[in-house]
């Protein structure tokens, strides 16, 4: 087994365990901390795939900004284990059945899927230089159009958040 494969397996095990932990943990703060661990392991995958830019952005945006916001919200709302609303068993049961069915269908579908269809091209595609070229040549329209999306989100923050 080569070094990348060993690293992949280590990261895979940690990421799945921590992702399960996010859902299972009773304390919301623990959930968020486990989510940060998950994000770091995903960053590890990006580095293994030679996508440095994505890896750095992932750390800065997700593990940095978004997670801090998550923590702020949780602390502001003062959630704790006892404050969690009790769901009745019927709802829980229905949720388990529905989610389980979706899982079975997806697993059954993806088990047979041919995952060898993507042919690996140049491994330098994730480097910043190449990414920039693609972004401003082939994907220049989505790049510009997404500014409208962000602008409307900013307007929303002002319209909803500001005091009358």
């Amino acid at each position, binding site marked *: 087994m080569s070094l990348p494969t060993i690293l992949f397996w280590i990261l895979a095990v940690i990421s799945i365990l921590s992702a399960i932990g996010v859902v299972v943990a009773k304390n919301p703060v623990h959930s968020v901390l486990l989510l940060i661990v998950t994000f770091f392991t995903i960053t590890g995958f990006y580095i293994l795939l030679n996508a440095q830019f994505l890896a750095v952005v992932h750390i800065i945006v997700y593990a940095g900004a978004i997670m801090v916001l998550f923590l702020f919200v949780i602390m502001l709302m003062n959630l704790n284990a006892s404050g969690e609303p009790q769901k009745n068993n019927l709802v829980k049961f229905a949720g388990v059945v529905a989610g389980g069915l979706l899982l079975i269908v997806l697993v059954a579908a993806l088990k047979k*899927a041919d995952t060898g*269809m*993507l042919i690996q091209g140049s491994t330098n595609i994730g480097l910043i230089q190449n990414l920039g070229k693609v972004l401003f040549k082939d994907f220049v329209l989505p790049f510009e159009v997404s500014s409208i999306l962000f602008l409307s989100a900013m*307007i929303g923050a002002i319209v909803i958040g500001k005091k009358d």
Partner: protein
Amino acid sequence: MNALISTAVFGIFLMISGLFIKSKQAIRILAISGVVAAFVLNIIDFRQYGASATELFHGMLSVTNFGLLFIEIILGCVLVYFLLSGKDLANIGHYTGEYFALIFFILCGVVLAATYGNMLMLFLSIEIMSIPQYILAGSDKHNLKSHEASLKYFLMGAFSTGFLLMGIALLYGATGSFDITTMNLAGRPIDAMALAGIILIAFALAFKVSAAPFHFWTPDVYDGAPTVVTSFISTIVKVGGFVAFIRLFHIAFGSPDVDKHWLLVLSIITAATLIIGNVTAVFQQSVKRMLAYSSISQAGFMLFAVIAMNVLSWQGILLYAAAYSLATIGCFAILMKMKDYTYDGYNGLAQKQPLLALMNTIFLFSLVGIPATAGFLAKYFVLSAAVEKGGLLWLVILAVCCAAISAFYYFRLIWAMYFKAGDCQVEEHAITPAFKSVLALTALLVIILGVWPGLILAWI
């Protein structure tokens, strides 16, 4: 792509104008002239593009005259909306410029929905249509129901966007392409991963057009949002979602060996939408909530255009977009002038405001699908498209039965207006001669389209 540029630029322009122009009236007139300008610029564009797709920006947009015609219809409906309900929109709160700017951004999203050629643009168009809606739904800050509508819509919408992205990712994994024309699922045996992707995308889009069983957000959001906003999001944005739906499923997943996998699923969704929308609408006491359920049931009819996949269905969705939007915008414009939103609030409207009652009757006739109105021809086109497709006769029969049910709750309103004695409260000062004449023109347009659909269909 004049329409894309003009809607985006006018959106930004209106946003900034809110800073300098304090008069709500002036901003409203600016917005109306913006729509007119976009309308004219789009006509100029129309001559340059033919029936075969023109690829722009490395295949990000694929422009056809169908797409441009659809944009033209939408811009026309928005013009009617601004003329009828612009004042109410300006008066929701303090941020008049921003409200109009958000409407223009939504229009930008609709333009993208009618012309996208790439999954990435599909995602962006759906999001640009959705996010301003969440804001507009919550713009009435003194009303708790408006807050609830906004939050509910946001959470559910974000969830369904997750489904959309997951579907797109799976499709990319299966085909190695984001481009809807080069995705080419037909050539080889279909992959399980691609199937899961198609189904997830279908669910996400069904959510956006409020098809059952993904409709649970609809009544609460449409009821809670300010009425003038409901009027917009239940018409323009909904048909915008449909054009995205129909283009994706016809162009990317439309070939016979692919569509056999999803046709039954969408047929069942259509049947459920028709039944749930119509049966629940019968039990509503509030006209606003009835119109919310009616928009679900009309979505059921529009889904026929998605599953039929032939020339008739493309024509049908164009006609349906115009007929449904005009009639619903008209109904909401009259609803906004009423003080009481229940059926009883309409009692005796025919004595007090005969013109309003008559116009409302024409709009409701169109929604039911009475001959000589646009709604009849629209329903006729989508249903005959399904008959031509074959194998969907059970669904067509179900749809006709549901149309009969829908007559009950639409006619109940007409009954209240004409045959029940009562003292309905109307905001007299808001019913100006200008409002009445625009309303009459809209009703006239509904009838003209019902007699002469060539007005729209001659262009494709």
